[in-house]
């Protein structure tokens, strides 16, 4: 029996090629994703480890460091503590570091220096040692306040040479130093542009305050344990410091990256999952058809004494062989994909400089498990059907088994679909976002999907005659034959179309949600954004008061409203919560139309008052007139009366959950805060385009400022949505490719199955051209059928999701009819293309050989 199985597998290997390809693609995607993310996280962890000192001392803050960096409040350590650290036994050396990430470097042509359009720059004091990620390549170390060293990758990219001057914008102000040296990354370039100043210059230029540094790096004397040293330093310094050993520092540094990487990993694996699901249908169809074609052979096996279990096992074993072959090739494909992704990282500035792919032992195990599981599950039903073949089948005429009634399927499928639709409707009726409605929506998605898959064959009988209704009139007998062929085996047509349906449904639903989001945001911007011009910072670098002054002086500008932001703790009734707080000039109401559930903007922004978000006061016994304590990161605090409550329920898009105070109130607490947003309106009678041009000119010296008018603002949001959508389409492309392979597979196997019929048609005078057309039309109608089902399902999902999210600000429903029309036409074209090879093969058949096939 085992020998028979192997022989059978080899004999039918050509028919399994596409199934193997489907497994290959899905497994390659899974394996490639794992290898890629493992490589990145290992490399970066290594990098952080080598770059970390034995023990690092940083300031401790109750706020997240990255958030603080963004508001321009760099936490620091007093330099005086360095001397104290040197006295700790076991410390060989203590080096005060200055490292900031909110810096912009501009070259002589006005372009930002870095590997990408919005480069990440890290500026630090020049202190080459064995932990430093770079070493001096050309030139010399920076000396004095007007010299810097750049990393050579960024310098090469911007063609900056030694001796050139660059414009550097840092938090304390801008300066124009000369590049005196270029530093080379020792191992890999993680996509960060590096700028170095000498120690004193770094303190002045980057921090603007004397006597403080951002961290202290301690080197242990040989033989001193890092943990022990950490404990000694902690004992010496007391609280208020964040002390980490090398390992802890490396872990902390890669934790953020790990989170971002996990998002990418699970997104990619999610798409791989969709591909696997789609591939399941392909494999299922292949095995169903193989079993049907081999009915006589299986009957013979049964007649000569094979048990049902033997036959069942034989088919499953064939599936296992297929899975092993497909998964092995998939692993190899994963290697290529992983390497390709690493290469792709170079476009975002991350150069791993030939780091080999990291292959964890789990990767091949997962790859094989996934490949085998999917294949065997897909082959399970066909295997069971094979076992049901009676020994009598050996004696009967070969051919498809009598078609079972679709009645049970119709009833079951309708029930599941209706239940799913009800769940979708329940989810869609949500007036606020809560887990119950989310669950209903998810259940509805699954229910309708399963229902449609079950109903597929029934729908094929209903929809295909209609889709192909004009075929006989347009293409004569050839058209009629292709319509009949598509309907001949509704189960097969249903399963083939289902694969395409899943991909199309996902694309359709996402595009409904995305276009709705685009239009909702557009509507919100129209309703809420009163400012004609918005200036925002880029690179987390806020701008000095002179920017607002400059804008105010531009002719045609009427009002200017500044905003400053910080993170802060709100203390009330024993509870402490972190919120972000905006300090704004009085005219904010005209620029950002916010709704208030109590009070108004003037009440909230008055001296000694605060406007708190509804989401904060909701569950507290707090309202207008109540008092809270606001504590800012620098440790200062103030008692503020609640002057207004901001309606942030359901706005979703925008700064939900943020409080607001007067600009003066905030500046008194945190004097060093700079402007993060400046909004401006044009005066009546002045032309917007002229004001824009004048603003552009006036803001030239401030590269950290991004100027947007309302149209730009909308465009920015739309570009973001489009980018996400394109990535999603690209990834779903894999699922659609596999679905197309499924169409090719079904057609190719159908052609084999109908060899005699094709021979007959050719014998009685059908030309090759007509035969090819017949197969192409059949393919097109199956593909369009799948696309139509997918669109119906996807639009249903999309609309339900939009209704559910309407309370979250997604209140405009837009159905992208153009995209939908494109998908239907595209499906037809794809169907025609999918039929190319099977049609060619059919038309090349030897007529005589075809007729006499068994």
């Amino acid at each position, binding site marked *: 029996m085992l020998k028979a199985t192997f022989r059978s597998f080899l004999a039918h290997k050509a028919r399994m090629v596409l199934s193997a390809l489907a497994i290959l693609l899905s497994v390659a995607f899974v394996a490639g994703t794992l290898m890629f993310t493992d490589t990145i996280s290992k490399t970066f962890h290594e990098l952080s480890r080598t770059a970390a000192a034995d023990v690092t001392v940083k300031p401790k803050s109750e706020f997240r460091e990255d958030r603080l960096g963004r508001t321009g409040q760099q936490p620091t350590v007093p330099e005086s503590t360095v001397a104290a650290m040197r006295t700790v036994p076991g410390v060989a050396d203590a080096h005060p570091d200055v490292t900031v990430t909110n810096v912009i470097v501009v070259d002589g042509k006005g372009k930002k220096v870095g590997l990408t359009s919005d480069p990440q720059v890290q500026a630090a004091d020049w202190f080459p040692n064995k932990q430093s990620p770079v070493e001096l390549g050309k030139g010399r170390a920076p000396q004095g306040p007007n010299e810097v060293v750049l990393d050579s990758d960024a310098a090469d990219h911007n063609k900056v040479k030694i001796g050139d001057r660059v414009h550097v914008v840092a938090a304390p102000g801008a300066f124009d130093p000369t590049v005196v040296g270029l530093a080379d990354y020792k191992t890999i370039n993680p996509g960060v542009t590096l700028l170095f100043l000498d120690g004193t210059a770094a303190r002045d230029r980057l921090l603007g305050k004397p006597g403080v540094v951002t961290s202290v790096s301690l080197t242990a004397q040989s033989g001193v344990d890092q943990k022990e040293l950490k404990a000694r330093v902690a004992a010496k310094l007391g609280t208020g410091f964040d002390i980490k050993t090398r390992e802890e520092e490396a872990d902390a540094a890669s934790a953020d990256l790990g989170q971002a990487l996990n998002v990418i990993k699970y997104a990619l694996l999610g798409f791989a999952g969709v591909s696997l699901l789609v591939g399941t249908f392909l494999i299922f169809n292949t095995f169903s058809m193989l079993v049907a074609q081999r009915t006589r052979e299986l009957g013979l096996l049964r007649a000569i004494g094979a048990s049902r279990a033997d036959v069942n096992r034989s088919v499953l074993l064939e599936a296992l062989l297929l899975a092993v072959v497909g998964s092995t090739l998939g692993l190899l494909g994963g290697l290529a994909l992983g390497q390709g992704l690493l290469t792709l990282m170079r476009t975002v500035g991350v150069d791993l400089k030939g780091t080999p792919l990291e292959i964890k032992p789990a990767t091949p195990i997962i790859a094989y498990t996934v490949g085998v599981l999917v294949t065997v599950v897909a082959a399970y039903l066909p295997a069971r059907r094979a076992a049901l073949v009676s020994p009598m089948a050996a004696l009967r005429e070969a051919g498809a088994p009598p078609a079972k009634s679709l009645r049970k399927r119709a009833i079951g499928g309708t029930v599941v679909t209706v239940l799913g639709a009800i769940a979708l409707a329940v989810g869609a009726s949500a007036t606020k976002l809560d887990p119950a409605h989310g669950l209903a929506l998810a259940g509805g998605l699954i229910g309708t999907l399963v229902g449609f898959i079950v109903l597929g064959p029934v729908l094929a009988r209903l929809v295909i005659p209609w889709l192909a209704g004009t075929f006989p009139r347009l293409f*004569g*007998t*050839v058209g*009629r*034959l292709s319509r*009949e*062929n598509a*309907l*001949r085996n509704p189960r097969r047509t249903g399963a083939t179309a289902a694969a395409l349906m899943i991909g199309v449904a996902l694309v359709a639903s996402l595009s409904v949600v995305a276009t709705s989001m685009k239009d909702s945001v557009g509507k919100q911007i129209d309703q809420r954004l009163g400012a004609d011009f918005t200036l925002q910072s880029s690179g987390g670098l806020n701008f000095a008061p002179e920017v607002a002054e400059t804008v105010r002086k531009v002719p045609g500008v009427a009002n200017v409203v500044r905003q400053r932001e910080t993170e802060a703790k709100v203390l009330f009734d024993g509870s402490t919560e972190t919120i972000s707080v905006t300090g704004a000039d009085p005219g904010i109401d005209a620029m950002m139309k916010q709704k208030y559930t109590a009070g108004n903007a003037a009440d909230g922004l008055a001296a000694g008052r605060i406007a708190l978000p509804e989401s904060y006061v909701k569950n507290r016994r707090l309202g207008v007139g109540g008092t809270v304590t606001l504590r800012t990161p620098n440790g200062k605090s103030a008692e503020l009366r609640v002057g207004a409550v901001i309606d942030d329920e359901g706005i979703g898009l925008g700064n939900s959950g943020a409080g607001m105070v007067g600009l003066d109130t905030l500046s008194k607490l945190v004097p060093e805060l700079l402007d993060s947003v400046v909004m401006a309106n044009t005066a009546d009678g002045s032309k917007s385009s002229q004001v824009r041009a004048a603003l552009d000119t006036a803001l030239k010296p401030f590269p950290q400022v991004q100027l947007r008018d309302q149209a730009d603002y909308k465009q920015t949001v739309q570009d973001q949505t489009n980018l996400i959508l394109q990535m999603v389409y690209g990834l779903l492309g894999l699922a659609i490719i596999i679905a197309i392979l499924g169409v090719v597979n079904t057609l190719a196997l159908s052609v084999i199955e109908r060899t*005699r*019929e094709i021979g*007959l*048609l*050719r*014998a*009685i*005078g*059908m*030309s*090759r051209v*007509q035969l090819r057309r017949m197969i192409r039309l059949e393919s097109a109608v199956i593909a369009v059928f799948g696309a139509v089902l997918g669109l119906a399902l996807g639009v249903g999902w999309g609309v339900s999701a939009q209704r559910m999210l309407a309370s979250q600000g997604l209140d405009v429903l837009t159905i992208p009819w153009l995209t939908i029309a494109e998908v239907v036409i595209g499906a037809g074209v794809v169907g025609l293309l999918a039929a190319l090879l099977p049609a060619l093969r059919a038309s090349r058949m030897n*007529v*005589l050989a075809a*007729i006499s096939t068994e």
Partner: protein
Amino acid sequence: MSPGNRRRPPTTTPPANRLAEPDAYERIDHDDRAKGSAASSRALTKCYGEGETRVVALDEVDVEIGRGRFTAIMGPSGSGKSTLMHCLAGLDSVTSGHSWIGDTEITGLKDKDLTRLRRDKIGFIFQAFNLLPTLTALENITLPMDIAGVKPDPAWLDTVIDTVGLRDRLKHRPSELSGGQQQRVACARALASKPQIIFGDEPTGNLDSRSGAEVLGFLRSSVYDLGQTIVMVTHDPNAASYADRVLFLADGRVVDEMLSPTADTVLARMQRFARATS
């Protein structure tokens, strides 16, 4: 005038106008359609394999198939009778020699021309799997004309359908018809387009004797009453007895022929061959 044409019943309508097809084969057989044979071959040779494994299936066969006659080709298994039919019908390529349908030489024709020739001039009845399962009986009957984009002649179609006795079965699919009925649909399809010649490859091989007799009787009446030309390959002496002429093949050569055969004389001849070769 051949005897076949004389027997054509006067009720028959003249052949429907074919679409003008300026093909080589059409032009040649235009002027002397009435003359000559329906199909013929000269020194037709068909070999399989190369070198030591070379098998000669047909060895310089010369045959003439008369118009309006029912010819049976008989011979033991491996005698080359099916190969001869396939080569005469243009389904199989030949190693050397020539064959004609009417006055059109088909050896050397391209696939496109051969396909059109089969569609327009030849009818086929195979042993099994003659019908498309997705089409009804009537649709199967008119299929060659539908493929050609030609309207069937309704009067002729009626005649054919009545002759095969399928009027009440026209809407049925092949799976709803008995084996005999399916073969009669195949016969009707072969006749419906008024081909110059019909080739049958063991058309009754899969039928019980009663259904077989029905089909054979029908084939014979289509020759005698409708003036059709039929060539049938069979190994059954009883089936051969329905023909006007039997060609006997052995080892790829025509070894004998018999006119006005009966089952007994054919059987006797076959037995003589068997003795001679054993």
